[in-house]
C-alpha cells in the first residue's frame, strides 16, 4: 500500500504541474483527467473505496466531458493565454510562500510519521448513516442540483426581454 501511495502522489504532482506549464488546450484537459484518476487511486490506497469510486464517476464522467464539449463547440481560440513573465514569477513566489507557511505549521504540530493506516469502511455502514442520521444531507444535495438546473435553463433559453 505504501508503494502505491508514493507512485500515485508523484503522478498527481507531475500532472498538476503539467496543467500549469502546458500551452495546448486538449493536452491540458488530459493532464486534468490524469490528475483526477491519480487522486481517486490515492483514495483507494487509503482504503476508502466508496469515495474513490464516487470521485471517478462524478469528475471523469461529467465535468471533463462538459469541458471537452465546451472547447470543441464554443471556445475557438487555439492556445492558452498566460500572463507576462514578471507577473508569473510573482505568482510563483506567492504560492511558494503559501506552501512554506503550510509546511511550517504541519511540521511544528504533533504528527504521526507512519503514512498509511488502511481502515476499510464498508458501503453498508455509509448507507445506514446516510438514510438515518444524516438524511438532511441527501435532501440538501438534491435541492442544490434542482436549483442548478433551474438557473441554467433560465440563463440559456432565448428570452427576448433579456437582450444582453
Amino acid at each position, binding site marked *: 500500500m505504501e508503494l502505491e*501511495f508514493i507512485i500515485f*502522489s508523484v503522478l*498527481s*504532482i507531475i500532472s*498538476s504541474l503539467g*496543467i*500549469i506549464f502546458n500551452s495546448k488546450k486538449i493536452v*491540458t484537459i488530459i493532464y486534468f483527467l490524469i490528475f*483526477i484518476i491519480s487522486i481517486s487511486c*490515492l*483514495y483507494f490506497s*487509503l482504503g*476508502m473505496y466508496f469515495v474513490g469510486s*464516487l*470521485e471517478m464517476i*462524478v469528475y471523469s464522467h461529467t*465535468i471533463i466531458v462538459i*469541458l471537452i464539449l*465546451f*472547447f470543441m463547440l*464554443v*471556445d475557438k*481560440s487555439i492556445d*492558452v*493565454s*498566460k*500572463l507576462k513573465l514578471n507577473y508569473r514569477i510573482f*505568482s*510563483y513566489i*506567492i*504560492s*511558494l510562500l*503559501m*506552501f512554506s507557511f*503550510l*509546511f511550517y505549521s*504541519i511540521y511544528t*504540530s*504533533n*504528527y*504521526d510519521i*507512519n*503514512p498509511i*493506516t488502511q*481502515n476499510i*469502511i464498508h458501503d453498508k455502514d*455509509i448507507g445506514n448513516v*446516510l438514510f438515518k442520521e444524516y438524511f438532511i*444531507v441527501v435532501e*440538501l*444535495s438534491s435541492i*442544490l*442540483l434542482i*436549483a*442548478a438546473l433551474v*438557473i*441554467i435553463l433560465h*440563463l*440559456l433559453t432565448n428570452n427576448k426581454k433579456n437582450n*444582453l
Partner: protein
Amino acid sequence: MLPFYTLILSSILFSIGISCILIHKNLLFILIGIEIISNASMLSIISATSYWNNIDGIIFYIIVITISAVDSSICLALFVLLNKIKHKIDVNKISEMKG
C-alpha cells in the same frame, strides 16, 4: 496526532492550484484551478477520516462533490453567455463590461 505525508501532499497540491489560478487568463483554466484546490482540501479531510476510522468525513465529501458539480455547470453556462457578447473568454475582457 496527524498523518504527515498526506497533509504534505495536500499542501503541495493546494499551492499548485493557487499558482494555476494566478497565472492563466482564460476563465476555464481558473475553473480547473479551483477544482484542484477543492480536491486537495478533500484529500486532507479523507486522510484524517481514514486515520481515525470515522464516517463523518465521507458525508462531508458527498456535500462538497455536489457543490463542485453545481459550481462547474453554472460557471460554464455563464461562460457561454460571455462568449456571445465578447467572442472570447478572458479575464481582462470582463473589466470592459458596463454596469
